[in-house]
């Protein structure tokens, strides 16, 4: 009985320019797909201590059992690799349409190995791989590259590409896919190190479902749940549907939790001008979906550039309204839209670059750096757009900043590490650890650095739990991390889980693939993947000392109205970290105990110092 996974992947050898079909071994199947497959494969196939930019690194791009099906909000594909930004194992996701196309190629994913001598475009037609010279598209932005591929090689291709930042191996360079982004962790740099400029997929195999009738029934039930949520005026996902992800600036601002001026303040007086509602009301706006998604949280905006030209971009998303908005004291929606567009052109993670720019501006204020011919001032569009380009091109001071905020601080010195707002060199997502203690713990303990996707954001910002308390936060963070890992095997959009009863996940898995897994087993799968990631990171040389926030969080109270002068108590915070490790069955140094690994069935991956 055919299910929705093809049980085969393509190994693409970039060194030799060849590819082979790899039939997925039986022991991979319990990892379900997506992040599960990627983490297991990478753990088995690379030495965690390698240089992420060497040809020894591998890129594991996968889809899950629900990708390309009618199950709503499962458009995403997953990439697992070693991150050149953080040195950790990285899992990164993008929505859009490439995930479904990979499935329709009749594969569960591809594994990129080695590195090419010459720049290439990979064309994947079902299971046939062609290496094409990337000469015609070198230097082009991501949208331009992908448009070229469609116009010249085939309109039906679904694409992914890097921009100039990836070409120059900027450590925070991202991989784009039709304006959606595998944003975090420097995937663009990994592709750059392999000299892969772009990849395009075109599939004719469609997908099967193990039990079409039951799957159709579940889909209808899930669509109703999503519709009912979206129909409610004040529902979170309903807000995303109507206003995009920038709908909530008001609440965050009023809670004094909107990181502003390199996280010195918790409020930004111009937050209204860069909110989702503002863009909706003042710019030509169209709603855009990812594959199969009825929420359509994406937005196309047409806007004017600084030089009076006309252009368009998809976004900015909420996270960018912080990273290129409040964090830089930028309250100009046109400048924000242009900065967002430039991140698409250069192919850069808007979060880490925003934090790197705000770091640089504070360094300049303190007299630690300067740049010939470029003013470096908060709120100055020239500074913001200028630094963005310099980082993208690795020019001047941009060459140091391109290494990421933590590495740049090491080079710049002068105590600047205290205010590089990052964990493991990955810039903070849009939340303030001093204002939201649980979220800060999630940032510090994330296996990929400063990640908000597994943080208890909703519970803290809505006041469901006290933002500033340390109690009970370790439990919440662990639970979020395990649950989200589990759903990222399918691969669910993060917003899907906000509405869907968890019982539906095992039901969907069974109807799609025939695999029977209980809800508890599903959660445990998430925990298993989390532990496997942690073991990778330990072997890569990261320990307890890296699960830490920058000194600003422990030493400087947040300024501004509504922020309660919040600061973290270092000792209390360390106690909470120990509590978290204990909950996870890890020792004081964050090393998983043998008993825990036996319980999870991954004892063979044990790390012993």
């Amino acid at each position, binding site marked *: 009985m055919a299910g929705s996974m093809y049980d085969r992947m393509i190994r693409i050898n970039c060194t030799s320019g060849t590819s082979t079909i790899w039939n997925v071994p039986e022991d991979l199947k319990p990892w379900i797909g997506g992040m599960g497959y990627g983490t297991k494969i990478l753990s088995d196939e690379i030495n965690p201590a390698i240089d992420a930019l060497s040809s020894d690194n591998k890129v594991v791009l996968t889809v899950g059992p629900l990708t390309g099906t009618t199950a709503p909000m499962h458009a995403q594909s997953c990439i697992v690799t070693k991150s050149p930004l953080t040195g950790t194992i990285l899992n990164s996701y993008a929505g859009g349409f490439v995930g479904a196309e990979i499935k329709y190629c009749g594969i569960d994913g591809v594994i990129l190995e080695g590195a090419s001598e010459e720049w290439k475009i990979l064309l994947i037609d079902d299971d046939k791989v062609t290496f094409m010279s990337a000469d015609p598209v070198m230097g082009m932005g991501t949208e331009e590259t992908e448009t070229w591929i469609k116009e010249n090689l085939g309109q039906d291709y679904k694409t992914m590409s890097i921009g100039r930042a990836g070409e120059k191996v900027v450590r925070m360079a991202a991989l784009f896919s039709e304006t959606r982004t595998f944003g975090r962790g420097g995937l663009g740099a990994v592709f750059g190190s392999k000299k892969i400029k772009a990849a395009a997929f075109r599939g004719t195999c469609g997908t099967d479902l193990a039990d079409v009738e039951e799957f159709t029934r579940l889909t209808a039930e899930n669509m109703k749940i999503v519709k009912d949520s979206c129909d409610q005026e004040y*529902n979170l996902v*309903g807000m995303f549907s109507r206003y995009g992800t920038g709908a909530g*600036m008001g609440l965050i601002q009023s809670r004094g939790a909107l990181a502003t001026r390199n996280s010195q303040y918790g409020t930004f007086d111009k937050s209204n001008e860069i909110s989702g509602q503002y863009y909706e009301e003042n710019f030509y706006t169209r709603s855009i979906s990812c594959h199969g998604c009825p929420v359509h949280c994406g937005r196309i905006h047409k806007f004017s550039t600084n030089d009076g030209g006309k252009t368009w971009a998809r976004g900015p998303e*909420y*996270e960018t309204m912080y990273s290129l908005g409040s964090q830089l004291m930028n309250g100009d929606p046109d400048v924000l839209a242009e900065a967002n567009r430039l991140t698409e052109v250069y192919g850069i993670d808007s979060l880490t670059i925003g934090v790197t720019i705000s770091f640089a501006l504070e360094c300049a204020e303190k007299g630690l750096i300067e740049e010939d011919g470029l003013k470096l001032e908060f709120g100055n569009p020239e500074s913001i757009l200028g630094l963005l380009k310099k980082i993208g091109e690795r020019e001047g001071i941009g060459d140091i900043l391109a290494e990421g905020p933590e590495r740049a601080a090491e080079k710049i010195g002068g105590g600047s590490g205290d205010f590089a707002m990052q964990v493991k060199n990955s810039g903070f997502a849009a939340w303030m650890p001093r204002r939201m203690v649980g979220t800060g713990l999630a940032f510090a303990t994330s296996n990929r650095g400063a990640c908000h996707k597994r943080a208890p954001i909703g519970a803290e910002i809505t006041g469901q739990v006290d933002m500033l308390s340390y109690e009970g936060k370790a439990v919440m963070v662990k639970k979020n991390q395990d649950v989200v890992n589990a759903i990222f095997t399918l691969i669910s959009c993060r917003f899907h889980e906000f509405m869907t009863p968890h019982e539906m996940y095992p039901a969907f898995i069974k109807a799609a693939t025939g695999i029977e897994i209980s809800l508890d087993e599903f959660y445990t799968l998430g925990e298993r993947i989390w532990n496997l990631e942690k073991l990778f990171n330990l072997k890569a040389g990261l320990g307890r000392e890296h699960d830490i926030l920058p000194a600003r969080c422990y030493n400087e109270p947040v300024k501004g109205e509504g922020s309660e002068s919040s600061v973290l108590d270092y000792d209390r915070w360390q106690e909470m970290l120990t509590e978290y490790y204990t909950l996870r069955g890890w020792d004081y140094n964050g090393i998983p105990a043998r008993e825990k690994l036996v319980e999870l069935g991954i004892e063979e991956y044990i790390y012993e110092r």
Partner: protein
Amino acid sequence: MKAVIEFVGYFRTKTGMERFIYDFDDDSATVRDIIIEAEKALRDREFVILRDGGLIDGVLVFHRKANDGMERIFTPDTPLREIGNSIVLANLMGGG
């Protein structure tokens, strides 16, 4: 006594105002009471946040604490005088 609802984010856009003020005859008024008055006054903006006596899912009520932070209010029966006669109204936040 004068009581205030401060509108934030989506509610500011929806109601077209930053705050709603109502003068109650006595000081036993609750959070629900001022919301009812606001719903009456803003009927033309389709401002409705109560259903079956409780707050509609996704509507958040806070009060500002003395130290300028905010605390969530879960029960509309809370007397306004206990919370400084003022509430902040917001919706479930965005982000991600």
